[in-house]
């Protein structure tokens, strides 16, 4: 499921940059497998909780899985949102050469991948790296905002496509937030430390 979500983010950003409508449409049409897994994972966790009374590490792992499941499903939805913006953007002349947005895409994907690897390997060090990456994504988003604002002020025709790019950067930033949530859940699962909302925990 994590692999699917990652791949869809990659395809949506590539479709935007390459103005590849076929690729974009594939992302738009392809949310179903993730949605099916979303339901299946929830059902399995539900059953495990009901029938096996998991405790301690097992309990934290299942609760983490339920939350990560929701995050991944949202990432799948955000990939669709990016593809929708990309579809509209492809109908306009390009505003500029895209530099920061592909970079944001790369970072968001890497964060997702690392967060999921951390989950699988129960690796809190890697999870904490993911938390640090989120700041880079936020900075890039702010930069994209500012830069596109200048384009919009210069040419009213650029407003619509530039707004779509701003939306894409916002979606990518949100994907980073979901990766951050996953990393926080991994830390909680492994060491029972709640590091959300900037409570760093004794290890930090």
């Amino acid at each position, binding site marked *: 499921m994590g692999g699917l979500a990652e791949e869809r983010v990659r395809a949506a950003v590539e479709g935007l940059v390459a103005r590849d409508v076929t690729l974009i449409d594939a992302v738009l049409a392809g949310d179903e497998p993730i949605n099916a897994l979303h339901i299946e994972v929830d059902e399995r966790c*539900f059953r495990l909780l*009901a*029938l*096996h009374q998991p405790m301690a590490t097992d309990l934290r792992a299942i609760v983490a899985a339920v939350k990560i499941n929701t995050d991944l499903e949202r990432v799948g939805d955000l990939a669709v949102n990016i593809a929708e913006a990309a579809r509209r953007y492809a109908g306009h002349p390009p505003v500029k050469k895209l530099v920061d947005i592909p970079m944001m895409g790369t970072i968001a994907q890497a964060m997702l991948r690392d967060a999921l690897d951390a989950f699988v390997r129960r690796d809190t060090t890697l999870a904490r790296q993911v938390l640090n990456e989120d700041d880079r994504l936020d900075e890039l988003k702010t930069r994209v905002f500012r830069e596109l604002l200048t384009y919009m002020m210069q040419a009213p025709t650029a407003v619509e496509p530039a707004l779509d790019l701003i939306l894409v950067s916002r979606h990518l930033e949100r994907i980073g937030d979901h990766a951050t949530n996953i990393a926080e859940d991994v830390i909680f699962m492994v060491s029972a430390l709640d590091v959300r909302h900037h409570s760093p925990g004794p290890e930090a």
Partner: protein
Amino acid sequence: MTHQVSSPTRFTTGLSVRDGRDPALNQAPKAVKIDVEHLSFFYGVKRALEDISLQIQANLVTAFIGPSGCGKSTFLRTLNRMNDIIPGARIEGHVRIDGLDAYASGVDVVKLRRKVGMVFQKSNPFPKTIFENVAYGLRINGLAASKSELAGRVEESLKQAALWGEVKDRLHESALAMSGGQQQRLCIARALAIRPDIILMDEPASALDPIATQRIEELVYDLKQAYTIVIVTHNMQQAARISDHTAFFWLGRLVEYDRTDKIFTNPSEKLTEDYVTGRFG
């Protein structure tokens, strides 16, 4: 009170739902091993079980749950006629094992119990050696033709009961020197030795610590490949963990009988819901 839950049509439709636990449940329903029809049971004038109908399927674990005095143990004991010896006890209705009426005149009760073995709450090994405990049933039933066959079947039974590794070097020591959990597994081995089809277990783990309980539960899971297991338990969580089907009894009535995951996640009856959520009992 009528028990729709026990009607075969409704019950088999429930089995078509996906199940993550036992792939076998996703397939066609298994053969009916025990078919109980309109069973009532009386201790003198007191009716302890009221008009119970249900079908227990082969090679599954079926759990009976319910508060104390709900009749679940009484019901279990009707399945191999363990209640016969109680003065004034009387039954109405039918219990069919593989299609044969267990209460028909002319039924050999000893044969019936050979087919339907039983394990009790309190482990009750004979005051003999470990080997003799398992060999006893084989000897009195004349089930082993030679010494080597006897030894082979004792070993096989102890292995099936996941006890062989722990006792193989002290087979001729007293069974009473074993731990409680080992004694209980010995009783299971003793029940298995005569190769029954069905094993009835009445609170088999209630006197054991959590580790020994887990071993019994794992054993139950393994044994269902070859046996049909019916287990009475006070411990709802245990029923949830190990059984495929669960029957909930209350005041001598069968309230609900369904797949275990259904009973514990979305029971059909309010009484069942109240019981599994701990609101009474």
